[in-house]
């Protein structure tokens, strides 16, 4: 390797390291700040758990983490159910008009949430589901279903139809084929959809803000946002809250990075 190429590789490495610092700095800032009291933070040194204790007094952290888990878990399960069943139907069980139905559902991805949020809010409140988990869960499920259906349909199209036909010959029902043949084959795609939607729902603010308004039903992301708008909460406490709310999604990211990237590139229709 020539000296010139070696130098250019060193320069590349240094540039990439600088970018890495820029991307990681916020995490360091959150962690470092949260372990200081307000005075220590202003002084720029010291270690204290005061801010963490203050966070747990300011909002019901554990309750809101549980709320996030319930809402995110239920929404992801509904999305998985509707997108795997619909994906199987659109890929393997065509009926008159099914391509049109498929297109209409996919077009749902192009509807910005703000364009439907007002009637959605009014409808859900007429149904008496404001401040109830099911209201927010159903809205999240509907928002995630089009992308899930698209990814599952694409995946099932790649499964040979002979598998379905052979199972039919053996006398299996469509439901049995779905459960015993299709679902086990689709596990990689199911994981991708689950991870994408978990992060999307866990991180959302708008739906939670409108549909889960009281502190005891709020998700942690919403709890954190409302903490900030109170304006009197010291920065280290906000950083402790940020860290708590970010951690579960970061863990999911670290465990399922590959599936997340797969989902992103599957979105290109390739």
């Amino acid at each position, binding site marked *: 390797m020539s000296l010139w190429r070696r130098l*250019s*590789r060193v320069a*590349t*490495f240094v*540039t*990439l390291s600088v970018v*890495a610092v*820029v*991307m990681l*700095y916020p995490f360091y*800032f959150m962690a470092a*700040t949260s372990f200081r009291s307000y005075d220590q933070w202003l002084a720029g040194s010291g270690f204290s758990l005061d801010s963490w204790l203050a966070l747990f007094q300011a909002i019901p952290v554990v309750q809101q983490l549980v709320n996030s888990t319930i809402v995110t878990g239920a929404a992801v399960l509904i999305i998985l*159910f509707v997108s795997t069943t*619909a994906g199987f*139907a659109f890929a393997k*069980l*065509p*009926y008159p008009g*099914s391509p049109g*139905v498929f297109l209409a*559902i996919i077009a*749902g991805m*192009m509807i*910005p949430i*703000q*364009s*439907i*949020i*007002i*009637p*959605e809010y*009014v*409808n859900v409140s007429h149904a008496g589901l404001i401040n109830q988990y099911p209201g927010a869960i*159903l809205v999240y499920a*509907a*928002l995630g*279903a089009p992308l899930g259906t698209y990814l599952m349909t694409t995946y099932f199209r790649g499964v040979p139809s002979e598998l379905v036909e052979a199972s039919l010959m053996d006398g299996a029902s*469509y439901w049995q084929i*779905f459960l015993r043949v299709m679902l086990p084959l689709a596990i990689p795609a199911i994981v991708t959809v689950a991870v994408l939607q978990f*992060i999307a729902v866990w*991180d959302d*603010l*708008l739906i939670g803000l409108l549909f889960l308004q009281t502190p005891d039903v709020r998700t942690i*992301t919403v709890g954190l*946002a409302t903490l*900030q*708008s109170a304006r009197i909460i010291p920065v280290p406490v906000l*950083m402790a809250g*940020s860290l708590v*709310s970010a951690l579960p*999604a*970061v863990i999911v*990211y670290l465990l399922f990075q590959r599936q997340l*990237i797969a989902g*992103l*590139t599957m*979105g*290109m*229709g*390739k």
Partner: protein
Amino acid sequence: MAESRAADRKAARRTGRLKQAERRAGILFSLPAVILYLALLALPIIQTFYYSFTSWDGITATSVGLGNYQRLFTDSTFWRVVFNNAALLASIPFAILIPLLVAFLLNEHVPGWRFFRSVYFLPTAISWVVIGMVAVRFFAERGILNTLLAGIGFGAVRTDLLSQEYGALLAVILTFIWSVFGTNTIIFITGMATLDRDVYEAARVDGAGTWAMFRYVTIPLLMRFIQFAFVLTLITGFTALFSLIFIMTSGGPGYATTTLEFFVYQTAFSNGVFGYAAAIGMVLFVIVFAISVVQIRVLQGHGE
């Protein structure tokens, strides 16, 4: 002869029955998705369209014809908001070019490149709320940016971006570019992995420098990925920044950082003017829908 015809008919009837069973199963299996879609996506977008022609407070609605849309054109706040969206649009080339350059460097596969890739993609997992929280501290008067500036001898330019009209918009845009960096880098890295390394070797043999290779080999071959990233970034900028703006500036100062999506929320849920907000929501919907349709056309044109 007659026997075989009877057998044919029997077989035809059997495949007919099978076809019928298959269709019935298809309808049943797609039903849950269809119901969810109709009740919570299709119905509300139709309602938004309907109510955009009314004066509506959430309970009673009275028709105002095109009134809301006419009002939009004379509403100076609306045009300020459109300007903010245009500024976001104008920032997208930076949100594309920086990741493209970094992906090009990553593609050199220097030691640790996989680690760098993971680090760059990490903010994808973080909520806009958390990103906004840190961004506020970064741009604040006693924040990280000013500390950095002072550190390199620019203490005199000490700024409080978030309290200035265009400064706040710049701060939101910079945070936006930071946030989409990882996703776009991953898209380009994936794209570069599909390119044949021989192309680069051939270019190198022909005496092409690094910049020439980036400009004349990488960019043209990645056009499909660049278009995809562009549209994805644009849709993110127009429909996913609500939480970031909510945390960083609440749309202010004044309307300096209010985008269309934030304007819908403010008009409806802060001011209670649902009909007018519905009209703004329709404008946003038409813009996003048009962009998406163009994207599909473009991607299909390049696929095959």
